[in-house]
């Protein structure tokens, strides 16, 4: 029931969600850690910046990304200086867009989780001769596990459904930037409702199965042997 082109779109969507989530966790974890721990009295500024993608309409975000990626924009100039070309219409460009778009969904749960770890367990670990990195990985991360779970799930799911941003900077290239949400939109625009239903159903099922597995896994293993 699903055309090959649509399967390709589905696979691309999953790939985008996976890569974006990984990048978000890598970037978001140190940022969330700093936000949770810093006592800087202007920290509300970076906090507001992180939350900005929550309130911006995705197409507005996408539009400004399009400008930023262009030859006169900051990212475009950077990529050109590095010897490359515009990142619009590329998978990398989509990853950048997804990272910006889903940033608050990853950073905020992580920040909350790190904050709730509190100072005491880390002080205890310090008195047990654990260095700062050691403390982070053996104490903060395990104790913040629910936050990591939420961040991963939200980041992944949010990217799966991303449309407005991809619409603006994607260019609809099969295998590169034609993700499932765009494919569904195209089918609807082209009055091919049966295919649209099929693809939408597939996307929904995959998302559901993923969510169920992640939450099921989290139920076990409350105690971890280090």
């Amino acid at each position, binding site marked *: 029931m699903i055309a090959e082109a649509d399967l390709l779109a589905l696979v691309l969507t999953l790939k985008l969600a996976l890569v974006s989530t990984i990048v978000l966790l890598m970037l978001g974890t140190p940022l969330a850690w700093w936000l949770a721990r810093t006592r800087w009295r202007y920290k509300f500024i970076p906090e507001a910046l992180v939350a900005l993608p929550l309130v911006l309409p995705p197409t507005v975000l996408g539009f400004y990304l399009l400008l930023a990626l262009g030859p006169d924009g900051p990212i475009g100039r950077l990529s050109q200086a590095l010897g490359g070309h515009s990142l619009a219409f590329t998978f990398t460009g989509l990853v950048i867009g997804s990272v910006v778009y889903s940033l608050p969904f990853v950073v905020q749960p992580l920040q909350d989780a790190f904050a709730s770890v509190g100072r005491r367990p880390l002080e205890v670990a*310090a*008195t*047990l*001769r654990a260095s700062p990195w050691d403390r982070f990985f053996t104490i903060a991360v395990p104790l913040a596990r629910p936050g990591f779970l939420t961040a991963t799930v939200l980041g992944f799911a949010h990217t799966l459904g991303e449309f407005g941003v991809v619409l603006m900077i994607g260019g609809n290239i099969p295998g590169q930037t034609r993700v499932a949400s765009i494919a569904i939109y195209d089918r609807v625009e082209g009055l091919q409702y049966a295919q649209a239903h099929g693809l939408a159903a597939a996307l929904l099922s995959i998302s559901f199965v993923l969510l169920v597995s992640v939450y099921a896994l989290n139920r076990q293993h409350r105690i971890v042997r*280090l």
Partner: protein
Amino acid sequence: MSIRVRFQIERGTFRLGVDLDLPGSGMSSIFGPSGCGKTSLLRAVAGLDRYADGQCVVNGLCWQDGDLFLPPHRRSLGYVFQEPSLFEHLDVRGNIHYGQKRADPEGRRIALDDAVDLLELGGLMERSPSTLSGGERQRVAIARALAVNPRLLLMDEPLSAVDVSRRQEILPYIESLHRELVIPVIHVSHLPGEVAQVADHVVLLGQDGVEASGDVHDLFTRLDLSLAHESRASSLVEARVAGTEAEFGLARLEFEGGQFLVTQGGLRPGRRVRLRVLARDVSLTLERQADTSILNIIETTVQELQGEDEARVLVRLLAGGTLLLASITRKSAHDLALEPGQRVFAQVKSVALLA
């Protein structure tokens, strides 16, 4: 061999200056009411809080001096926090193992099995912290702190977070630690009973800073300090079990300056004990009494007298090398014409065995 501690602690409006030399072995207790800065001081020694211009040298290891500051994870110390603070995501074994894995290779090897036995944790190893009682958790915390082979153990009011009824559960462990450990311990408390039981050296902290720092037997009986003026003011006596009078269910405890007979049958001869003698359980006579039911009569010399209130007087006595405290009525003091240097006999009605 000493522990040198000098800090100017400032937290908000709170100020505390300390300049102390503590013994490099044995248990030193920092004693004082809440809010006087005991915990702040302990945290400063640990490096958990950093104060400018502090100095902390532990048995030759310089942890802080001027610009030099070792962060806590580079100091060879163990710290037991007031609230048990076990890692919730690890079981008991995991908690202790956490310390073990990061143990100081230069530190004195505390055989972990011994610590685990000492603290009687054998049956708890697989348990999760949330299933333990406050006392059990604190014992695990102590074992965990010892697992890093520290050169100094710091304990912040280890009994406070434990139910009063449970405190007796842990105190013996702390006391046996005191006996068994070679490393020095700095221990913070506001409970005189706890300090009496385990301390060798006491730092008395008041609202205005350090009031006194010295040997525990001395400080408990010093008439110029608040300790002697508590309702349960007492003196501490180090004794050794010399023998028993089995047919009467008594044990004979010898100390420097005399002996006590106590109704405690099962004591092993040769064992060292610490006794607590409440000042109000001590009465004085000018001549040794005969035909009395009081078993323990010690020959002493009056060191010092001080009025307690309108009716009572505290008397500091010396028997051999042992200090005793007596609380008697002013009238009696007057009638007996007590004065320093005088020989009197202390009749001790009851003696508490602290360990």
